[in-house]
């Protein structure tokens, strides 16, 4: 008995020691992570706090807690340019939502064709579609610009929106093809037996079953469009049509050194929609990145 109990106790002790060591290492890891978290968030929090400070206090301190809170910067910044930021925000919102709609409709129709329909040359087109994934946009930029210039579309939203309705974002097509392939074929078989048309199968069966991938595509399209700077920079040149990103750029160039407060306030506002997506759709963001390597 004693001969058996002895190693048993020492094994317990060993396990206790290992647990203690694990707890110590975990503690150190937590300390490192908390410090790193503060360092990561500090610039963002500082900008947030600076946007609520009185003008003369913005740079007086690196502290995060303002001595007094005021909305002055927001009021000033809102009307800093000839056109109010209300206009820029509604421009960006309309543009982003239209692009979301375009990508959802066009990419899902294309993905449905690739994932479910049978037609000659399918694998050929599919390979070409995958090939365009790697194509940097600079290569198509100039002829596209010339095309849109000749169509009289420069200084409208059409150059930014129409491509979405023609499924140029191959990435989302690929994402949806992968998802559609995972939906059991028996479902569309049964619907076909019941006399449904191909379009009905796409619209009434595939789309409702694909809400996760559609959500992922929608939020990423929204974020990409909301943040897009290059497209608006090239195609929009009247302030009436500016998106928030372009307006911020004008703000920087016109009065950066004189009104950091107003600029910070508008910058913070421009991040709000993305932050809301982050709060409410974080699961989709994380899964989207983990499974596909989406850039953000």
């Amino acid at each position, binding site marked *: 008995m004693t001969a058996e109990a002895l190693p048993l106790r020492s094994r317990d002790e060993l396990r206790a020691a290992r647990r203690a060591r694990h707890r110590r290492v975990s503690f150190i890891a937590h300390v490192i992570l908390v410090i790193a978290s503060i360092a990561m968030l500090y610039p963002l929090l500082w900008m947030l706090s600076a946007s609520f400070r009185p003008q003369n206090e913005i740079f007086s301190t690196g502290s995060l807690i303002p001595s007094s809170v005021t909305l002055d910067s927001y009021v000033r910044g809102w009307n800093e340019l000839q056109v109010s930021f209300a206009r820029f925000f509604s421009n960006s919102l309309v543009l982003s939502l239209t692009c979301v709609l375009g990508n959802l409709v066009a990419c899902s*129709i294309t993905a449905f064709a690739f994932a479910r329909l049978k037609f000659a040359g399918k694998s050929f087109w599919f390979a070409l579609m995958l090939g365009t994934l790697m194509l940097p946009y600079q290569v198509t930029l100039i002829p596209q610009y010339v095309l849109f210039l000749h169509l009289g579309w420069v200084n409208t939203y059409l150059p930014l929106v129409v491509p979405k309705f023609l499924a140029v974002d191959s990435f989302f097509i690929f994402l949806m093809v992968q998802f559609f392939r995972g939906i059991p074929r028996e479902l569309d078989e049964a619907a076909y037996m019941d006399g449904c048309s191909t379009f009905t199968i796409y619209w009434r069966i595939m789309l409702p079953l694909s809400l996760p991938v559609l959500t992922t595509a929608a939020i990423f399209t929204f974020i990409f469009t909301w943040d897009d700077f290059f497209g608006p920079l090239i195609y929009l040149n009247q302030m009436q049509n500016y998106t928030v990103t372009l307006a911020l750029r004008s703000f920087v160039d016109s009065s950066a050194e004189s009104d950091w407060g107003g600029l910070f306030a508008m910058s913070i506002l421009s991040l709000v929609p993305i932050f809301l997506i982050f709060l409410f759709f974080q699961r989709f963001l994380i899964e989207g990145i*983990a499974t596909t390597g989406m850039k953000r």
Partner: protein
Amino acid sequence: MTVRPLGVEADAPTAGRTVTTSGWSRFWRKNGTGYAFLSPWLLGFFGLTIGPALISLYLSFTDFNLLQAPTLVGDANYVRIFTADPKFLQALRVTFFFVVFSVPAKLVFALLVALLLNRGLRGLPIYRAIFYLPSLLGASVAIAVLWRQLFAGDGLINKLLALIGITGPSWISNPRYALWTLVLLSVWQFGSPMIIFLAGLRQIPQDMYEAASIDGASRWRMFRSITLPLLTPVIFFNAVIQTIDAFKSFTPAFIISSGTGNPINSTLFYTLYLYQEAFGYFRMGYASALAWILLIIIAAFTGLSFLSSRFWVHYDS
């Protein structure tokens, strides 16, 4: 089990009828549905992707200022780029510098934090969210604006340095440091590769560690012999994606330098130079040549990465 593919459905109702003789109508009957669904993409592919790509290849051999029709100049644009354009060399230098310093640093941070988080710590979702947030927001103009202030002469960084008695330079207007602030901005956004690393770490079977631990392997040994080799596909994936992305980086440099690439072209990213040539000077032919060179650089890099992957990426599982 045989599964009837959709799209051939058109055959079924007409099977009893006499087959029409025209090959075209037979082709249409078999493939029409598919091509109808594919038509928006086909239009976009030809009209906005492959068509423009080929036209820009043609334009790269021309002189074109948007106002007059392009005139063919042979390989003059390319000759000038490679022999008489110091700004091109500078843009290449800046971009490669940015890629070489930002990508590895970003990946190392992403991996280290992912390893820390993967220890089964409590609060993982909170940490993950905090580290991911900068990378979600980071591409926006707002953050570039913030960076411009942080590293200005009278910016926050110098205010903080002054507290410990250091007088910092004006980081963004000093050619020695301006590019480093952009590298730092990129590294700050290590969140998304970190999430990919976390997903990869979770794929590694736990029993491998248990077996190694019974054999008395140290933690470092387990990292070297299990974690790292099994993670190489993820490292490879992250490296390729991040590098291509870094080559195409535009917005931060544009905002920080007000579109100039200054001080003394020290933040003249390749894309920024291309933008200046195309939309500042309207040298569309020259800019097209720059775009094709960028495509070739990215393609060559990607090709080499895949070739090299045979020697270091571990694929059997």
